[in-house]
């Protein structure tokens, strides 16, 4: 639809010219096909996508990894990453087909008319330059205004995005500010030229929930203030629900469903969309434990002179799951290092199965090492890429149980059955497995030698929701069958609800609240638990506004003047 047609349509409906301009089409994508190269061959990764975006509208793109969301987002700028190529389609922005434009014409649009906010702001800022210099580079480079003017504008944006000390903020280097602040700085950088369109590519995925809510609020606010159109890409439906007017669900590079946000949430049509909604329904019935397997009491630990854990107490009953929850830097993973003996505590004691656990790894005997196992966050890096699955699983069997030959083969097959993978996988390399399959192998490796305690460090946070749910189900089933105990470290409260019997909430190296799941999750909460719980986005488009209004009200109520 051309601008003229849109105007004609609107004027016939009797709206003002302002509204007409607003609902004019800004971006129209038709029949977009993109191929990606892997192993010398081109594969189709986007298969004929079309979308329309009006001025000032926010469109959400949802899907799991591999759905082609980011590729489409970049193609909306007329850009394909190295190793990708746009093979067909039109990307019409403001009446011009970006796919027909040359490199230098595109450069004139990039930054000034269309801007991009990447997932990892930490990697997307140049470490060698000050933030403000990077924020004004596009404005000055496109000769839209003079440098001092641009800098004043950047400071103004920092202020609007509620960054601390906006006048000095830009003088810092990327490594000197936190992840949430960097993500807001990136939004300021994108906003610097007042573009017509911003592509947000998972801007809050790498952040803690408590930080995410601030960044979401800041982005939503500033997009609204400048009436900028945006494409908001995320795998998290609840996040998109807060930001987008309209949602497109993608899978395998194809459109599954498209609808206005509220319609999509209340009445999803396609089975795949419904399954995305269903993920959050997994919930374990809480069971009280009897015999305590692991008893961490009064543990302090520090890196050098920096104290990371303060008087941490955790009790884990046999055959149960204790979830350790907290944002990054809360000391969750340090606790795991202390229990595994990688970091000896400076005071306090750990008892395992009634006996005192030696502080150092070196002092623990082989059997003790066997009884405590660990599963890591990134299955990609936890498996040796040059070893076949048979060797990866077989080595602990030989080392700890002395199994060889036919006995080992029997155990290998048994393990593969446990983790629901075909035995053919035994002869594959890790690179030939998907993320979920790799994590299953990691679980099998931990289970291989019959441990009593498995420490799971964010084992599902690198996986897509559907895959993550499968892994959680597997862990629960194995616990029932083998009576193994889990210390489950996570920042994701949905996962906690799904898997835990008891919860330990950590904040800045201290346990702020602990107890059975039902007790911790029912009010009244400790203030930090409350903050954590209330920061988890909900599937309600009004959730963000409501929670911000509530918090603001609480602040006003708490201040003496209010």
């Amino acid at each position, binding site marked *: 639809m051309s601008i003229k047609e849109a105007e004609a349509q609107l004027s016939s409906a009797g709206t003002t010219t302002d509204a007409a301009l607003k609902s004019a089409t800004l971006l129209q994508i038709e029949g977009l096909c993109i191929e990606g190269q892997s192993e010398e061959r081109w594969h189709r990764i986007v298969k004929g996508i079309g979308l329309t975006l009006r001025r000032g509208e926010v469109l959400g793109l949802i899907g799991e990894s591999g759905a082609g969301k980011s590729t489409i987002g970049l193609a909306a*700028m007329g*850009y394909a*990453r*190295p190793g990708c190529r746009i093979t067909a389609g039109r990307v019409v922005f403001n009446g011009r087909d970006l796919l027909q434009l040359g490199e230098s014409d595109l*450069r*004139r*649009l*990039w*930054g*000034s008319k269309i*801007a*991009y906010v*990447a997932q*990892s702001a930490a*990697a*997307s*800022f*140049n*470490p*060698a*330059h000050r933030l403000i210099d990077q924020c004004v*580079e*596009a404005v000055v*480079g*496109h000769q839209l205004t003079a440098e001092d003017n641009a800098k004043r504008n950047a400071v103004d944006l920092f202020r609007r995005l509620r960054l601390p000390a906006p006048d000095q903020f830009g003088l810092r*280097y990327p*490594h*000197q500010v936190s992840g949430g602040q960097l993500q807001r700085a990136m939004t300021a*950088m994108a906003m610097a030229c007042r573009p017509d369109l911003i592509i947000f590519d998972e801007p809050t995925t790498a952040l803690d929930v408590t930080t995410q809510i601030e960044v979401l609020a800041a982005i939503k606010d500033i997009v609204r203030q400048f009436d900028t159109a945006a494409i908001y890409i995320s795998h998290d439906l609840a996040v998109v629900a807060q930001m987008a007017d309209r949602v497109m669900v993608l899978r395998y590079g194809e459109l599954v469903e498209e609808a206005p946000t509220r319609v999509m949430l209340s009445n999803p049509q396609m089975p795949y969309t419904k399954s995305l909604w269903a993920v959050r329904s997994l919930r374990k019935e809480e069971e009280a434990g009897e015999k305590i397997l692991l008893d961490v009491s009064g543990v302090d630990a520090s890196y050098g002179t920096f104290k990371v854990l303060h008087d941490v107490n955790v009790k884990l009953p046999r055959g149960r799951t204790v979830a350790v929850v907290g944002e990054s830097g809360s000391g969750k993973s340090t606790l795991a290092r202390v229990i595994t003996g990688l970091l000896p505590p400076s005071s306090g004691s750990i008892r395992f199965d009634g006996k005192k656990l030696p502080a150092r790894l070196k002092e623990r005997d082989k059997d003790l090492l066997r009884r405590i196992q660990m599963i890591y966050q990134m299955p990609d890096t936890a498996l040796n890429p040059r070893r076949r699955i048979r060797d990866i699983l077989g080595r602990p069997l030989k080392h700890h149980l002395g199994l060889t030959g036919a006995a080992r083969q029997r155990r290998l097959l048994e393990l593969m059955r446990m983790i629901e993978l075909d035995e053919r996988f035994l002869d594959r390399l890790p690179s030939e497995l998907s993320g979920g399959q790799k994590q299953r192998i990691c679980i099998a490796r931990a289970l291989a030698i019959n441990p009593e305690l498995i420490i799971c460090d964010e084992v599902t946070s690198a996986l897509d929701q559907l895959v993550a749910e499968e892994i959680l189900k597997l862990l629960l089933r194995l616990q029932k069958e083998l009576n193994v105990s889990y210390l489950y470290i996570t920042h994701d409260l949905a996962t906690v609800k799904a898997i835990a019997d008891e919860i330990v909430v950590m904040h800045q190296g201290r346990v702020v609240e602990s107890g059975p799941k039902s007790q911790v999750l029912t009010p009244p909460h400790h203030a930090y638990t409350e903050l954590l719980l209330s920061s988890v986005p909900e599937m309600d488009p009004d959730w963000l506004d409501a929670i911000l209004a509530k918090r603001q009200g609480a602040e006003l109520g708490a201040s003496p003047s209010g």
Partner: protein
Amino acid sequence: MNPILKTVLQRLGLGLVTLFLVSIVIFSAVTMLPGDFATAILGQSATPETVAAFQRQIGLDRPPVLRYLFWIGGVLQGNFGESFSSAGGLGGGHARTVVSLIAPRLKNTLFLASFAALVAVPLSLILGMLAALYRNSIFDRLVNLVTLTSISVPEFFIAYILMLFLAVRLPLFYSLASVSPETPFLERVARCALPALTLVLVIVAHMMRMTRAAIINLLASPYIETARLKGVSPGRIIFRHALPNAWAPIATVIALNLAYLIVGVVVVEVVFVYPGIGQLMVDSVSARDIPVVQACALVFAVTYIGFNLAADIVSIVTNPRLLRPR
């Protein structure tokens, strides 16, 4: 204390320790050289008594440990001892100090090295950046081909080819680089042009290819994509976004090549009859003039350690994480 200053001082201390160990290695190696100076200078026909007397005169009869301590003690006070060969056999006469022998030669070498470096370093950085900018283009391939060819051909061959074409066929340059301390600066530059050009051709390839590789390596970083999507021009991306983060590997290669310019140019010196320190060392080795050999080796060691230290410091101060802690 400033963490950078602390690191730099640590490296400096480490460099001094290395230098001390190297001095032991140098001394041992020179002591183990076959043949000795006394026989070399007095000839095969000398009687054992004459040889012994001569050895006593220049101190060769003392045990090695004592000789080492005596030598290193002198070095610490800036006294590298006296040259054996200038002692003029048994006749005595006024012996020349090692310093007075080495100083003019070292000056010549440093002059030639600086001359070559001033051309080669900027040239290879610019070529490297251009090659990265126009990677896989004809220009990139051509630069790679030419520099690779020049590094693959022995340096004496390049030297003679240059001499043939640029001094003999086309008499543009001096074919021999004979200079004396009195030679005026401009004439010195003119006389050194061919050896400097030879050295440039030898070292450009290495530095240019590392610059290109370091920059291309960084071009895959997310912040480069961010810069592109801000509409930053390709040239500015290379110069402003990639180069500042590529200094560490580039500096290491530059340091190695600059050290080579001082330490490894003996072949070029011989071809152009240039009175540099490399030739002095080779002459002294064949004459068994131990104090001069040791002093030259020590100068070379200082050069290597110094340049590597400089490269380390460059990689520290170009890393904003180290330069500006949180």
